């Protein structure tokens, strides 16, 4: 029960933060990305505030052997940069630039859902489902191939 409450509280703080920061307004996001036109630098302060708090807290937290309500930390362990990371970043950036919605603000905006938000969230869910399905199949193929090679 406690881990679920923790997730709800963390999610609520996150959504509230996105709303207060103005990230739920795609016009503000697109203006932030429009450095050669009508530039709104505010979102650099969102990232600055978030990074400041998190970069100070994270090393202290990671000094613990385990999290308070779970058996172990599940942070990513991969370090090398690969093609997938770059291709994904390019595709995500293009989508973010077109609509002004990244995943957090998109889902937080369901709190005042209109037809535009339903459309963009629906497409996001479909895109994620397709990509996860294909990656899962691809990873399985890689594994079978590796076993054959041995």
């Amino acid at each position, binding site marked *: 029960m406690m881990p679920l409450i923790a*997730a709800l509280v*963390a*999610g*609520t703080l*996150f*959504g*509230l*933060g996105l*709303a*207060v920061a*103005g990230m*739920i307004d795609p*016009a503000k996001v697109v*203006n932030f*990305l429009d450095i*050669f*036109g009508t530039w709104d630098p*505010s*979102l650099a302060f969102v990232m600055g505030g*978030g*990074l*400041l*708090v*998190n970069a100070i807290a*994270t090393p202290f*937290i990671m000094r*613990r052997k385990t*999290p308070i309500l*779970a*058996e*172990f930390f599940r*942070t990513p362990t*991969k370090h090398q940069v690969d093609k*997938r*990371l*770059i*291709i*994904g*970043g390019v595709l*995500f*950036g*293009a989508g*973010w630039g*077109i*609509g002004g*919605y*990244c995943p957090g603000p998109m889902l937080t*905006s*369901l*709190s*005042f859902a209109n037809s*535009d938000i339903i*459309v963009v969230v629906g497409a*996001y869910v*479909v895109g*994620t489902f*397709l*990509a*996860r399905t294909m*990656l899962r199949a691809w990873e399985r193929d890689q594994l079978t191939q590796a076993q054959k090679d041995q």
Partner: protein
Amino acid sequence: MEIVNFTPVPAFIGGALIGLSAALLLLLKGRVAGISGIAGGIILPEKGDVPWRVLFVLGLILGGLIYQFFDLGPDVALIEAQTDKGMLIVAGLLVGIGTTVGTGCTSGHGICGLARRSPRSLVATLTFMASAMVTVFMVRHLGGA
């Protein structure tokens, strides 16, 4: 370049709340507050790891409702989509596919990954920022992508 609608104080406070949320999730649950990763695990689930993700996403919506209830900033009724529904579909698909292939979004790579000084997250953040800025430049200044 012309600077518009600059709101550094609410932006910083909102950012700090996001950082606090990410720190809390790591301290209590040992998980990274990457929204695309959390949502992805609901959309095509792994075994036995779903309920906390659902509560986190419900929390996001609850946070949006609290903002509206207490009038903590500009009215959400004034928010307008930046493109038509057809392009919103393209945008949503690209964000879903891109964050899945690139294993993270603005929060997972930008806030959490950089705080852990992950080189992967630094490269990812620079890549999607550059791609988004180029896209906006094409759409707004070259008349269509």
